[in-house]
């Protein structure tokens, strides 16, 4: 129940107030979307360079190789390779997924789905975007420093990330960029939580909120609690690098006092584990809603899904040690982390059941958002199950720091979140930009992406099982990895296919945003959540009158309803 009603501001008129310094959550959401797509391209290009090097070592990278790396005739040199995988990880996590799923869809969807006119703190919202821009500039700027950008992995473990291992300013700029982004995301998180608590339309209890908002709200809670921890860790690293402190220095480098490099790992992973749940929760929420919408029936066990997501949120705070099994923490601690990690299976299994239960006896429409949501169920199933091997101490002793881990987290983070993000883009395009994306090309995009994606990440799990360790420039130095070359080549080809398939999406997206003549209706998907009660694209004030909510978000297929097969949340339950 809204604590207050926000007034309708006059429509902004100048270019600056409309597109650059806008307070409107919808505009800020779109700004984050473009920002995220740009970085997705940069991160993806880096991934292709990495894959190229792994499959064709020594060969010049096509087209741009000779411009970027003239000293080696176009082939990626070893130190650049280290920088590439570091930046790829950092960009994809913080500058692509976070802005798209949380910045764009969080900002865009939350007020609309709650029946509010804007976020609780519009100015904070705008600052959050501009801080993210500054952070992006810092990060990209670090590429142009004499010793290059950070090259110690996105996890930047000391002492490699201290002056001992990374003498250049690139690593310091990286740390600063992460800190600034952390501030930006924390601002966003505070905004989302406050909006969800104070600005729900009258009649909307927490369990009447769409599951998308649940996912985004829980993400915001984790962000608000744990980003400061990352900020602290990264700040201490900056102190070590710039002010001569020794928080993380030990061994020969610790000349003025000693600290513990493993301390950074603890601080990092206390944030890092919730971070991966931060990245996936919005996608879970979106998929839970879309499966219901396109099956034309209520979400099976919607309350259980919401509670399962909440319990995963809580459990995710207790399991970070499974990233550190090889650092020889005490045996009791190690075993405890394993057992706690296992408990996360229960809520995960619950919402898989609920997803399948939503499909069961539905009347499924296979539009592109639905295809992508089904894709998420598939890839997250694979990805989540492979996490079991890594949560178990003894199998992790073999699989830690191999490509198995890379395959696992790409399935859960890249594949699931990316597919979820595409589903969200295809779904909310009418409300954001007033047009529908081309369905035919959307479906082609889906199938080629699924094919490529599974090829890449399953290939990675196979080579990881074969023992190939990660972050290596030329794995074929070792005898034991020789036989894995064909799988690596297969993975690279799949990555190239997947990369090129995204061109279809970009063309489709740009066409729909700027060039499409045919406008979408107010509710092309025939769905009852509040954002579909207003015109497409949403007007700047969202709701002329604040809606009063009378039923849940998944009222579809009620036989008592006449004329249509769903109910808007503002209608009395039939």
């Amino acid at each position, binding site marked *: 129940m809204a604590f207050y009603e926000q007034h309708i501001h006059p429509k902004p008129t100048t270019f600056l107030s409309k597109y650059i310094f806008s307070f409107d959550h919808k505009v800020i959401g779109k700004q984050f979307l473009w920002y995220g797509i740009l970085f997705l391209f940069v991160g993806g290009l880096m991934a292709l360079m990495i894959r190229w090097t792994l499959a064709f070592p020594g060969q010049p990278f096509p087209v741009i190789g000779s411009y970027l790396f003239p000293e080696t005739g176009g082939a990626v040199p070893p130190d650049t390779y280290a920088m590439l995988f570091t930046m790829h990880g950092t960009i994809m996590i913080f500058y692509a997924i976070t802005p798209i799923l949380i910045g764009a869809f969080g900002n865009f969807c939350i007020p609309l789905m709650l029946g509010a006119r804007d976020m609780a703190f519009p100015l904070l919202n705008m600052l959050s975007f501009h801080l993210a821009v500054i952070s992006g500039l810092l990060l990209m700027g670090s590429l142009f420093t004499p010793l290059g950008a950070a090259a110690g992995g996105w996890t930047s473990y000391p002492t490699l990330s201290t002056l001992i291992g990374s003498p250049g300013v690139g690593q310091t700029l990286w740390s600063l960029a992460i800190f600034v982004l952390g501030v930006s995301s924390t601002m966003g998180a505070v905004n989302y939580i406050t909006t969800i608590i104070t600005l729900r339309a009258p009649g909307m209890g927490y369990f009447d909120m769409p599951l998308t908002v649940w996912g985004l709200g829980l993400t915001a809670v984790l962000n608000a609690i744990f980003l400061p921890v990352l900020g602290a860790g990264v700040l201490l690293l900056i102190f070590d690098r710039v002010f001569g402190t020794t928080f993380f220095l030990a061994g020969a480098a610790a000349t003025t006092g000693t600290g513990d490099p*493993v301390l950074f790992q603890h601080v990092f992973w206390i944030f890092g584990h919730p971070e991966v749940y931060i990245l996936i929760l919005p996608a879970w929420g979106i998929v839970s809603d879309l499966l219901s919408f396109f099956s034309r029936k209520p979400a099976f066990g919607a309350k259980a899904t919401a509670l399962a997501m909440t319990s995963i949120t809580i459990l995710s705070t207790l399991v970070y040690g499974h990233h550190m099994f090889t*650092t020889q923490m*005490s*045996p009791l601690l190690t075993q405890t982390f394993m057992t706690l990690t296992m408990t996360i299976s229960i809520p995960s*299994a619950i919402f898989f*059941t609920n997803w399948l239960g939503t*499909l069961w006896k539905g009347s499924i429409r296979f539009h592109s958002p639905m295809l992508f949501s089904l894709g998420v169920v598939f890839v997250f199933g694979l990805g989540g199950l492979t996490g079991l091997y890594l949560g178990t101490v003894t*199998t992790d002793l073999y699989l830690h720091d191999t490509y198995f881990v890379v395959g696992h987290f790409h399935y859960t983070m890249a594949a699931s979140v990316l597919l979820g993000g595409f589903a969200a883009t295809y779904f909310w395009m009418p409300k954001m930009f007033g047009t529908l994306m081309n369905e035919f090309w959307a479906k082609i995009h889906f199938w080629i992406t699924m094919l490529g994606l599974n090829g890449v990440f399953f290939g990675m799990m196979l080579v990881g099982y074969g023992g190939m360790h990660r*972050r290596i*420039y030329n794995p074929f130095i070792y005898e034991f990895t020789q036989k894995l070359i064909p799988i690596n080549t297969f993975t690279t080809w799949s990555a190239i296919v997947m990369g090129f398939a995204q061109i279809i999406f970009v063309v489709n997206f740009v066409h729909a945003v700027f060039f499409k003549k045919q406008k979408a209706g107010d509710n092309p998907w025939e769905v009852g959540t509040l954002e579909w009660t207003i015109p497409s694209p949403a007007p700047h004030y969202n709701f002329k009158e604040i809606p009063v909510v009378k039923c849940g978000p998944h009222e579809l297929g009620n036989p008592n309803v006449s004329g249509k097969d769903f109910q808007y949340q503002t209608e009395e339950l039939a």
Partner: protein
Amino acid sequence: MKNKIFTEPVLKNAENLGFFEMLAPPEDISANGHLIDWLFNYTTSMNIFFFVLVCIGLFGFSYLYHNKRHPKPYYTYGNKKAHIIIATVVGIAVFLCIDLMITGFSNRDYTGVFINWPDESKEDVVRVQVLGQQWAWNFRQAGKDGVFNTQDDIVTLNDLRVPANKKVVFQILSKDVIHSLYFPNARRKTDAIPGRVTRMWIEFIKPGTYDIACAEMCGTYHYRMKAKLTVYEEEDFSHYLTEAQQISSAVNDPEDGQIYWGWKWTSASSSKKIGMNK
């Protein structure tokens, strides 16, 4: 212009291998690696079972309930008790059948074997100190005097030689950044951390030469921090020891500070066992 440095060792065995041989993990030459392989395969079979169920649901329902085939959806209001029960039963089934089982096996192997340090006062173990550095592995075995960091120590670069069928206890340290001592053929790795000694014990059972790699990002040449493991038969190992001893006694200069990176060996069995039910 192709730079030759990057096109190092060429394809060796892949052409002759069958598909499944190509996918198999490296040959297991350790006494206890099979425990890890077994648990991996057990987890895989459980995963296949549940994933097949998910796929049957996913593809089956997509087929059966396509809107053209099933135009009228089944409407339910609110949260039916039956739904909650089904979801909870599935959740608990997964937890009991997969998670608790693999946790149990893993704990049994972890405490019973992998961190069950051999009692050095009773068993004859081979002791090795390892110093990881950017970008090489230094190995030290105490010489005849049995004391580490003395003139007769056998100190090698990227060359570890151990006997078969004897427990080898490693104490591992890093000089600069975090590395990870990785024996793919024994399914084990342990981080090498600056400022803190970590430990591992492995019993190798098959003579031959194998790879040792570094499994933690440690800088530009992390990818070629390769060492060679040679597992000898008993007698061959004693020959090696004697020979290496003689060489090291002759070559190691007591005045050279660089070689004496070793430390006093404290055996694990003499320290308190925390957290293990012994």
